[in-house]
């Protein structure tokens, strides 16, 4: 009996030594759907691996690499010079790896008669210069703007890509994630917001064409859609161990197939 107990204990210790936990933090755009799906698929072929995924915005992902609290930082934007500087000061070499391309779709309530917007109109709406739908050919009524929160990479990417780096309108409402924005716009006939490609095909919303171009895999790859961007994994130098294997899996044919299935644009 003692031998059996000892054997069980030894097995338990051995199993725990082999159990690998990957901590991944950052972008909600990547972390709400894509990375959890990749993780599930990865676990199917790597049963000893577990994941801790926290999707609270790109800023938190880049900070987690600098602080050493995650092996992979998800980000829907590039690291800022101040973040690279902070990382360097701590001896961290911030390495970006493009894992997918994405477009930021401008979403409207499905009942909104507006179907097309110019880049200038998008800038003016989100900056608060245009406050009524009648100014862009819609039914008269105040525009309700939904944006991501300030720790989101999509929040800053959209300012850079669509708003000439201007500030959002003071009346804009900040949401925790893409899904929350889409849900609010679906409920509000006067709503306008933005989300990643993976989140735009939901009931109750439609996607605005930007000067005649809709966000799609083709328009993003051809760099025709104006609000397109790469999305990243950030690591401290070249990823090591299980993190390296997971990055490789994400970039593999199988991983990129999932990228496409979720609604992002594959890197090849």
């Amino acid at each position: 009996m003692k031998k059996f107990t000892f054997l069980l204990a030894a097995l338990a210790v051995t199993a725990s030594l082999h159990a690998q936990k990957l901590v991944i933090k950052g972008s909600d755009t990547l972390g709400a759907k894509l990375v959890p799906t990749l993780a599930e698929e990865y676990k199917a072929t790597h049963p000893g691996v577990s994941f801790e995924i926290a999707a609270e915005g790109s800023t938190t992902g880049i900070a987690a690499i600098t602080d050493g609290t995650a092996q992979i930082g998800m980000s829907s934007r590039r690291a800022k010079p101040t973040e690279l500087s902070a990382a360097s000061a701590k001896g961290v070499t911030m390495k970006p790896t493009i894992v997918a391309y994405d477009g930021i779709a401008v979403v409207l309530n499905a009942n909104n008669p507006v179907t097309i917007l110019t880049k200038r109109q998008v800038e003016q709406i989100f900056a608060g210069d245009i406050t009524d739908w009648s100014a862009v050919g819609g039914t008269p009524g105040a525009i309700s703007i939904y944006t991501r929160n300030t720790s989101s990479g999509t929040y800053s990417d959209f300012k850079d890509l669509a708003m000439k780096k201007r500030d959002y309108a003071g009346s804009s409402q900040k949401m925790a994630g893409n899904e929350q924005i889409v849900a609010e716009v679906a409920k509000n006939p006067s709503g306008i917001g933005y989300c990643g490609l993976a989140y735009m095909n939901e009931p109750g919303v439609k996607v605005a064409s930007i000067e005649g171009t809709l966000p799609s895999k083709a328009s993003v790859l051809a760099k025709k859609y104006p609000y397109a961007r790469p999305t990243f994994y950030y690591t401290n130098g070249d990823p090591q161990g299980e993190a390296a294997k997971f990055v490789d899996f994400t970039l593999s044919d199988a991983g990129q197939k999932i990228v496409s299935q979720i609604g992002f644009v594959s890197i090849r």
Partner: protein
Amino acid sequence: MFHLKLKWLALLGGALIATGSALAQDSGPLVDLLVKKGIVTDQEAEELRADLGREAASGVLATIDGGKSTVGLVFTGRIQVQYNNFSGSIDGAAANPVALSHFILRRIYFGVKADLGAGWSSTLNYDFASLSFDAAFISWKKDDTLITDIGFKKVPIGLEEWETSSGSLKAIERSPITRYFVEGNNGRRLGAGSYRLGVFAGGAFANGVSYNVAVTNPERDEFSTLTGNSDPGVQGSGTAANNNFAYWANVGYKAKLNESSSYHFGGSVGFLPDQGGLVLGKGDNLTVYSVYGVLNLSSFELAGEYWAGDNQHGVSATRDAKPTGYWIQPSFKFTEKIEGVVRYSYVDSDGRGVNISDGTRVSVSGGTMNTMDEWYVGGNYYFRGNDVKLQFGYVITESHDTVTGAFAHARAEGVRSQMQVNF
């Protein structure tokens, strides 16, 4: 094609490094062009951008390397320029207090933080406006739950005094009640805050609870011996009036209500042996307490704090002083750049007395009475967040009744504005 690519990359890298970090940081369009021409892939471009960003960051460090173990140096600074225009009146006085209309350099901070690795760091901050240190301490961080410091820094007491940086005050200056409790003992104010030499420890837990404790020299000191000041705080030689340690503790709790709303509350206590009494050095003790809370509801914030103290023989040889007071401050961000602020503060000195200038900084002097209240109504314009901002406000201060309870009244009012840059 391969050689052409290498040549382009070498040319780009060499040009950017040779011409300095500013160009390196502005290299985006050039890198984009290389991608568009098919000379580099998107992935190669991202690695190039990161390399150039690192070069820009590490270039400074290479020329200002510290000791052998130094892995990072961060320089910080703060400049605050104020304009104040105040006038006042004291009922029944033969002459009004001298009015004030002046620009002042309120703070000129320059600081350095050195990271020595393995949790060790050191922080220095000097205020060239007051010729005094604000910080000079050595830290060891185990993790977020335990950070220890030894040296010269602010003691952990109060929301406005300790938790709120001078660069983040929404009403430009701290409230009269905070100033009355924490600023130097002048026979009326209590001197139970600000900078002291000692040992400090604190941390924050994932569940939102935070704590800070300190054991310090009892006397407040913000003067460097470089100024020739004989105050023993920085030098550390005790006297009969300040040879017993003071003890400080603070505990707080922060939590989110939702993505854009949160609340925060806490309490502090300080026990200062021999720092009470009408005159220091008589063996009287001083104990101070603060409880506070902050509620953030998206663009709206409500903050407030209540102070109480027990000053042995703080009024006379036969009477203790138990001063109390509070401040409350609603603020609202109309846009990301524009904010409105109102603050009300009340001081009850319990017979010890409070002068207008004890409570309202850089105002008129006079009107020492038993109680005081102050209204601040103002606005803040954030050019670049808190780092570049303009603040302006109208301040009305009134003091009431003599310390023995007879009717009396004094009033001061005026404009205060401040431009601030943090870097």
